[in-house]
């Protein structure tokens, strides 16, 4: 290396570096390529290969399996129901999230801050825990159900949380947060002088909404809608627990696999993955079309409510909304202290105890899933941090053939539903076959961390990319020109710049991994069963208290990870990030 020789000679490396100019840079590019190749290969192997396996497997009998899919009433039902549920979920989530975003960013009212703090709470629930909470609240023996039954003096439960509407209900509750966050972010960035200009020109409030706010927010709204659609298509927990007899693609896939009908499972998986990818492409296309720079020079002005009727009605409504949002968390907490088996027909559990937690901590059989989840999440996240940092660095700061491929590979897992990822892994890593680039991982400890790793790749990579894009690329050149070796530059210049994204991405990946359910339920073994699978098992045994205790523990873990991340963020001296950010 040019720099090494210069240092050997005792001359300032910068002179040699500059003198060799182009040649030295090309040489450095070779080092970079040596980094890129293993990362690209790894991602091809873990992300693309399994999916190729699935698609190939679906054509194992030519078009036979596909014809069977088209002919099978249950499969057709699954596809149509999936699409229908997803569209309904989009409508429901938007109906809640959109007005909420406007309300919380544009209007001043009592209780606004509380509502704002609580509004994103549903997203903080691990998916299965959310489902469990809904069961405790609105299920047949749920708190609200029983409450209403008693209140109205009915003989039977007023409703059963089952079927399509139940799934949409659960989706609406969890997924409105996407719409709310996207639209609220769009509104915060909204240049308020545009609104003032429109008002000054004589446009009333509704005219401004119709001709200004909504059109400018379309990218944000459309993006959120597509995200809800994709999440809905791949959703497993809600249909699994509340679907009743209703079939959706995700549950159909798991059923086929459990029945040993792998070929059908592959076809169903391919259909699911294709629909998700189609939605993603539509999203990308929409984002490219409407690129309005909203400069956000305005102040965030909130208007007080003028109409006395609204002023009387909104605060109690806000409180009711807050309660509705917080209730599932509270319910889970409550039931975690309920004695297993004691809660049968009463509105609330009758007996309370600390036993559930005690048993969790002391019985090895019960503690095992917790240990598993934490360990597997750690392994997966560690791998994510290393691989995604390198990948993001290469994508943002280096130019080389295959860079676009790397960027695509890194984003791909985001488009593929977790069930599809799981089926792909099951289809690929089910035997040792070096020539076919297979390793036996199914049935071992490692298959789940691999699944978590794959799911975490786009999350960590995009977060690190975001941080690195804010760094002035000239910093690297400046460091090298001053004589720093490549390793020193990475450690002292690039890594500090990437740190915020690394911490944020790793946090999200770890939090998702620790509570992951959808892929786990396809790939787990008794030995490496994670918390989520255990919760399901406890629910099946009607051990609600234990199930709730696990859920509380999971929430605690999520909180703990987030706090550690905050602490790590706080430790970063401001100079380092500022300097790294240029």
């Amino acid at each position, binding site marked *: 290396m040019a720099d090494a020789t210069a240092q050997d000679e005792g001359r300032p490396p910068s002179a040699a570096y500059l003198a060799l100019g182009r040649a030295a840079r090309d040489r450095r590019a070779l080092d970079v390529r040596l980094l890129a190749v293993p990362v690209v290969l790894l991602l091809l192997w873990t992300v693309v290969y399994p999916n190729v396996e699935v698609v190939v497997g679906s054509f194992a009998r030519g078009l036979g399996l596909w014809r069977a899919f088209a002919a099978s009433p249950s499969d057709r039902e699954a596809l149509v129901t999936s699409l229908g549920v997803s569209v309904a979920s989009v409508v429901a989530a938007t109906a809640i999230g959109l007005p909420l975003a406007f309300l919380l960013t544009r209007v001043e009212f009592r209780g606004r801050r509380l509502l704002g703090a609580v509004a994103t709470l549903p997203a903080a629930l691990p998916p299965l825990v959310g489902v469990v909470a809904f069961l405790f609240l609105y299920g047949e023996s749920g708190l609200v159900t029983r409450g209403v039954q008693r209140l109205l003096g009915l003989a039977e439960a007023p409703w059963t949380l089952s079927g399509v509407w139940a799934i949409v209900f659960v989706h609406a509750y969890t997924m409105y947060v996407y719409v709310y966050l996207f639209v609220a972010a769009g509104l915060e960035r909204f*240049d308020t*002088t*545009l609104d*003032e*200009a*429109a*008002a*000054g*020109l*004589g*446009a*009333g409030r509704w*005219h401004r909404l119709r*001709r*200004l706010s909504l*059109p*400018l927010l379309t990218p944000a709204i459309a993006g959120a809608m597509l995200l809800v659609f994709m999440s809905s298509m791949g959703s497993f927990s809600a249909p699994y627990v509340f679907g009743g007899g209703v079939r959706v693609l995700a549950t159909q896939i798991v059923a086929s696999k459990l029945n040993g009908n792998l070929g059908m499972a592959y076809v169903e998986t391919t259909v699911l993955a294709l629909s998700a990818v189609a939605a993603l492409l539509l999203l990308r296309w929409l984002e490219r079309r*409407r690129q*309005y*720079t*909203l*400069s956000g*020079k305005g102040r965030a002005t909130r208007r007080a409510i003028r109409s006395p009727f609204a002023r009387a009605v909104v605060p109690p409504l806000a409180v009711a909304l807050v309660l509705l949002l917080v209730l599932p968390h509270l319910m889970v907490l409550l039931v975690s202290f309920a004695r297993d088996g004691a809660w049968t027909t009463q509105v609330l559990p009758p007996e309370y105890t600390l036993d559930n937690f005690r048993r969790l901590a002391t019985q090895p059989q019960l503690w095992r899933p917790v240990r598993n989840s934490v360990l597997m999440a750690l392994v997966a996240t560690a791998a994510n941090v290393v691989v995604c940092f390198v990948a993001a660095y290469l994508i943002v700061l280096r130019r080389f053939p295959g860079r676009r491929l790397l960027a695509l590979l890194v984003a791909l897992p985001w488009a593929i539903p977790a069930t599809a990822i799981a089926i792909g892994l099951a289809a690929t890593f089910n035997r040792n076959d070096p020539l076919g680039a297979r390793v036996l991982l199914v049935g071992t400890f490692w298959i789940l961390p691999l699944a978590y790793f794959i799911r975490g790749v786009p999350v960590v990579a995009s977060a690190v990319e975001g941080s690195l894009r804010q760094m002035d690329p000239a910093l690297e050149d400046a460091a090298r020109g001053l004589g720093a070796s490549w390793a020193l530059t990475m450690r002292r210049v690039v890594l500090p710049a990437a740190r915020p994204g690394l911490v944020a991405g790793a946090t999200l990946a770890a939090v998702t991994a620790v509570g992951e359910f959808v892929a786990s339920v396809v790939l787990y073994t008794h030995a490496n069963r994670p918390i989520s699978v255990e919760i399901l098992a406890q629910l099946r045994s009607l051990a609600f208290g234990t199930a709730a205790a696990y859920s509380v523990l999971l929430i605690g873990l999520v909180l703990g990870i987030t706090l550690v991340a905050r602490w790590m963020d706080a430790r970063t001296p401001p100079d380092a990030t500022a300097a790294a950010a240029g």
Partner: protein
Amino acid sequence: MTSTRPAPGAAAPPAAADAAAPAAAAGALALDRVTRRFGSHTAVDGVSLQVAAGELLALVGASGSGKTTTLRMAAGYETPDSGAITLTGPDGKQRDLTRVPPERRGFGMVFQHYALFPHMSVEENVAFGLEARGVKRADRLARARDALRTVGLGGAGERPVQSLSGGEQQRVALARAVVIEPRVLLLDEPLSNLDPTLRETTRDELRAMLRRLHLTALFVTHDQEDAFAIADRVALLRGGRLLQVGTPEELYDRPASRPVAEFIGRATLVPAVDEGAHAVVSLGGVAQRLRTTRPPDGAPLARALAVLRPEALACAGGEGGDGWPGVVTSRRFAGATTVYHVRLGDGGSAVEVELASADRTAREGDRVRVRVAREPVALVAADE
């Protein structure tokens, strides 16, 4: 349109109010003792202004002087805590606009960063005000295109606004505000975001257009040159208070107070003894008796400062002759004039004056005599 000066000898001049004009003609905008506070900070303190119909008034001041807040109150984006904003209608009746929201005031506003709607084309932007007034599509687009022709952008109507340069965007913003035939036009720093090369031409075009349309206009700027070039009258604000309002000449020749003298143009303020119509300035042991702009019947100021403008001073080389003795400390050739800094007097009482002269002969270090070549000279109170 007169300006008022503080009562002679007053330590702190009261907020200079715009003297009551004769019964305001239609289209006159009046701000009457308008005040706005943000928490404990008073942004605008009892400002009173009158903009006559067809007049161009500039609000000038440093950042934080309250000029933008005053403009926003005139537009309706802020409501004054006290005071009133009125408009005299065509029937001669005064309408109180203080609590009327912006969408119903019928004013046009040009924002500092233009605030063009990014998702609409140029002509849709310009037509928006007409759209809000219910004008039919074909009609409003035709009027928009006319307005665009007026600002020199005819034919640009269908382009997206992002494709325009800064100067072009400003003209679109202007066309948009003007096409609705506003009662009053408000402009927030209309020239601040333009390239220096563009500013002068835009300045002239803007003034010409506003005069041609007989618009009543109030605009805000931190640049006094822009204000002097465009406005009929200038109002100087500082710390939320109105210091003085008058024609540019009045502010320049007869500053009402020390802050006005210091802000407007360049000047050196030197201690002077007020003798009524004259003042005596002693520097370097030499006294000069100068005619001042003060009214002869007023009571003399206890502690006064003479406002010496660079172009009013002349210097002559050598030790002899009239004028204050001094030494040239710096010399800067500026084309038509040469700017000298001359230190007059010695030691603690030395004063450095700036003078601009067509005469280039003096050099740094020369001993010269400085005298006032152009009288009268303005006089302001020293305590401020």
